[in-house]
């Protein structure tokens, strides 16, 4: 089976601050993601996982190796990225934000409004469709970010620590929301996080990266049954075992 994303022997270097020479962010990374799979990348902060994700999105050039994305439906956009923090446009209402990707794709007004409203209902913000982001909490803003990404209907979603800035409780709720959205849309997700808990809750597979330069140290197949619910998972014995295995690999890298 052809993988959806094929990252082969990728090295990414970029010029550091003046005088600091080159920074090697990622070195010799091989990673394959299958269609419909939810893969989480965990690693210590600064290990180059965000750089790798940006490279898949085409926002960062690769120094060595190849990244190949296989398209299966040319009518859908290939990738969309959900950013750290929500990065919703403060000057647009919730509806206009969610509608954004549909508008740039040139979808007719009536159709795209209906589509945007559908996703707004999915993230339970229908009462706030006309609100501006400054009127919403951080969690609600990130829900707008999720709705915007899912409404765009890409084949692959690239998520860069989207819930990193939220408090623990809001995080749990948004993780459930994300799982629901993913199940209805069936897209492929590559998700970057530094939280092992988050990776285990969401992913089919957790890929562990080392400290800079980022290399892949190993991976953990998550055998927890779906549909999952963030809080209940914690009491599953498999959860604790998997957590322990990942932590034993990561511990050395976190200083």
């Amino acid at each position, binding site marked *: 089976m052809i993988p959806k994303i094929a990252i082969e022997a990728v090295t990414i270097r970029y010029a550091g601050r003046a005088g600091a020479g080159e920074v090697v962010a990622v070195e010799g990374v091989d990673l394959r993601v299958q269609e419909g799979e939810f893969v989480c990348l965990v690693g210590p902060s600064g290990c180059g996982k965000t750089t790798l994700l940006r490279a898949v999105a085409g926002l960062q050039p690769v120094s060595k190796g190849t990244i190949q994305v296989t398209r299966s439906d040319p009518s859908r956009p290939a990738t969309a*990225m959900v950013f750290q923090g929500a990065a919703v446009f403060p000057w*647009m209402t919730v509806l206009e934000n969610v509608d954004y990707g549909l508008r740039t794709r040139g979808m007719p007004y009536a159709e795209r409004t209906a589509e945007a409203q559908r996703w707004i209902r999915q993230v339970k913000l229908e009462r706030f469709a*006309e609100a501006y982001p400054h009127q919403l909490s951080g969690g609600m803003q990130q829900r707008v970010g999720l709705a915007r990404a899912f409404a765009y209907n890409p084949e692959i979603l690239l998520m860069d620590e989207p819930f990193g800035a939220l408090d623990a409780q809001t995080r749990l709720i948004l993780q459930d929301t994300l799982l629901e959205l993913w199940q209805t849309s069936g897209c492929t997700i590559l998700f970057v996080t530094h939280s092992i808990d988050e990776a285990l809750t969401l992913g089919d597979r957790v890929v562990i990266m080392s400290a800079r330069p980022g290399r892949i140290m190993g991976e953990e197949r998550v055998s927890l049954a779906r549909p999952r619910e963030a809080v209940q998972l914690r009491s599953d014995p498999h959860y604790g075992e998997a957590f322990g295995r990942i932590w034993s690999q990561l511990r050395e890298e976190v200083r």
Partner: protein
Amino acid sequence: MRLNRRWISVLSPLILVLVWEMLVQAGVLNRRFFPQPTKVIETLIDLSSTGTLWNELGISALRITVGFLIGSLIGISLGLLIGISQTASAALRPIITAINPIPKIALIPFVVLALGFTEWARVLSLAISVMPIMLLDTAAAVGRIDSRYFEVAQNYGASRWDTFWTVALPASLPSIMNSVKLGLSYSLTLIIGVELFGARQGIGKLIWDSASLYAVNKLGAGIVAIALTGWLITAAIDALTPSLIPWQPRPVDPRIEESPIQRQIRVWWRATRPWSFTAATIPAVLGTMIAAYQGHFNLLHGVLVMVGSIALQAGTNLINDFYDYRKGTDNEQSLGIGGAIQRKDLTPRQIFLGGISAFAVGSGIGLYLVSVSGPLILILGILSVLAGFFYTAGPAALAYTGLGEITVFIFMGPVIVVGAYYVQAGAVGWDVFWASLPIAFLVAAILHANNLRDMETDRRIGKRTLAIILGRKYANIEYYVLVGGTYAALIVTVILGISPLYTLITLITLPTAVNLMRRVVLNTEPAALNPVLRKTAQLHQRFGMLLVGGWVIALCLKLLSGN
């Protein structure tokens, strides 16, 4: 403690003025060189009652408007271009950076050499001075935009054009508004210099003339007048900003130790629904500008017309609140508006008396205007007060019948425009009536959007609005007719030569209008139609300002070519 400090800040300038006054009277400060505060006020009153002050200020305001418009439009557009295009930045930035430090006054002689002592020379001097500042400020504002937003746009496949309209422009708008404010104050400074060069009129000219005659009190009066103008302009821009930049969180004023008087003012101000005042001020300003375009203008009367129509509007709103409360139309359910009674801020009786007082103020101003213009104002005024009162009062309240739209159409459209025009010109023709129709359609559309939203609740309580009589399908068509009629009426009046060509700038709001019409068809839910109402009101505001703007441009160009 806080209250004491507030008093100190009121008293300290008063004491300064008082000491100054005494020093001049005692002869410590030489009367030949130092203005005397009381005499300055006297002169100011004198100058404004003879109309001199308004004329001089008017001419200067005209020069500033045109000069600033030209300079800032070019500046902002080039600034945006430099901000988003590296190539444009490389080409233009060195030139602008070289020009900017030159004292702008030093450039005026060049312009005068090229164009002579003409009006265009003065206007262009202003434009050239304002342009580089606006340009650099705008470019800097674009540069400050968080790069994440551009990445998001890129990530969602936005074209350069999309990126400009959806990211660069809206994100830099708050800073641009700020530069506009600074630029305008700067223009006020410059106008004094510009009018040194062969101007026959203007506030700067008045100041220079007074100085050369040692008329220090008149000189002082001129300075006070220009300072007040600057303050007014800043206040006006601050007042307009929230409607232009609705996404900005408003600063929450910490209402610590609000005095009872402040509370009363706030409560009453809110009860009058100040956000609806543009419905009255836009037609009032429009009528005044049409008259000014045809050569009739008196600032004082123009201001009175505006204040008068605001008073009538406030009165209508208050009476409306009172009767809606009595009839039980507004409760927690209704996506209500005034609500001072519901919030227990004011008693129904207070609201009613407040409404009557507002009508009294409006009528008082109206009577004065009757005395300076003529009986037509009396007739229009009486009809307006009656319409305002019976809009929701009495057994046959207009708003609860199918006549709501037509009443609003007539009274918030032609009546105010024709009245405002008549106050200036003393006579009126059909052309003014026709020119008022676009905003008449649009103001009726606001009411209709409200009725479309409330159809279900209105039906339950037995209101028979036009929307209910027509039924959902034809009510939607009515919305099309009203919004479409706005643009159709405008285009027809332009073709017939009644409205100037420049009023077509209102057409830039057409996409919003089309958008709203589509939304009306797609939705029947009150929650979904609520934004339609809000945006229709906003459309009226923007369309109205642009329409007035079109007339002002025509007026400015006419005056400039006349001189």
